[in-house]
């Protein structure tokens, strides 16, 4: 039972988070800051999430290819 639960969890982790958990962390953080800016500071920060998504992609690609020929 535990093994089945573990492999079920591993499947969903691999399915959604994939090879780089830091991309997921950056997207979640960007969404939290966007919500904060919209609701607390009344700033319509529509640009923040796309900017962070692009930065996360470039950063992840840079780390994945660093030192590789």
């Amino acid at each position, binding site marked *: 039972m535990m093994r089945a639960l573990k492999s079920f969890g591993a499947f969903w982790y691999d399915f959604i988070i994939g090879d780089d958990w830091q991309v997921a962390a950056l997207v979640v953080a960007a969404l939290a800051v966007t919500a904060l800016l919209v609701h607390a500071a009344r700033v319509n920060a529509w640009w923040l*999430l*796309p900017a962070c998504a692009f930065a996360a992609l470039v950063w992840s690609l840079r780390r994945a290819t660093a030192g590789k020929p």
Partner: protein
Amino acid sequence: MTAALPLVLTVFVACAVEAIEALTIVLAAGLTRQWRSTFQGMAAALVVLAAIVGVLGPTVTLLPLTALRLVVGALLAIFGLQWLRKAILRATGYKALHDEASAYLREVAAAEAAPEVAKRGVSDWYAFTLAFKGVLLEGLEVVFIVITFGDNQRDLGAAVVGAAIAVVVVTVTGIAVRAPLAKVPENALKFVVGIMLTSFGTFWGAEGAGVKWPGNDAALLVLVPVVAAVSLACTAWLRRARRSGGAAGSRLQASVSEGISGP
């Protein structure tokens, strides 16, 4: 129907990629073992998937749209960025291309080596579990895409139509050629799906966080090409880096050989 076309097309391409991967596994099980147990495995997986859709579909619809868009948008953006990352690394040679022909040969070799064991009313347990796992895992991805896209656009019917067409087209083509669909440009498809998932995910996620997009839904018409342009720029950047890295490596190797063979 015209308004639903982008949704149908996005779900169609995403589900076609998953269906091609499931087809490779089913063909390996059916052609090398036996079709009866393979079909039983497929049928069992489809029953489990139908139960998941039956439970999850209505539950997700009950969630308020803002919360749904925040959670699903975040999931889709993360999911889409992972697809894009993988597709860019494959397109630039930093990661090996996913090859359905070699994946098929690996499955066939494993299927031929496994003993034939009858279990729980199934004459070939290996063929049953191989088909069951393949269809269930790839099917779960299809279900995830259909429910998230369908519920967010409040048009589950259009998402189901896109997925159904993808599954039918891949199945019919698979039956016709009786071989894995190795000629389908899978990485290019994954690249397109990554762009769409990232764009929709970013759009819905930000909306869920309370953002008002300039131009409302029309913002997607700008967001999709911008995500595509950034992804293509990343591909060009990594290709250039790889070429210049390779050239620098060759120069280094030449100077080392020169030093060894020199006076």
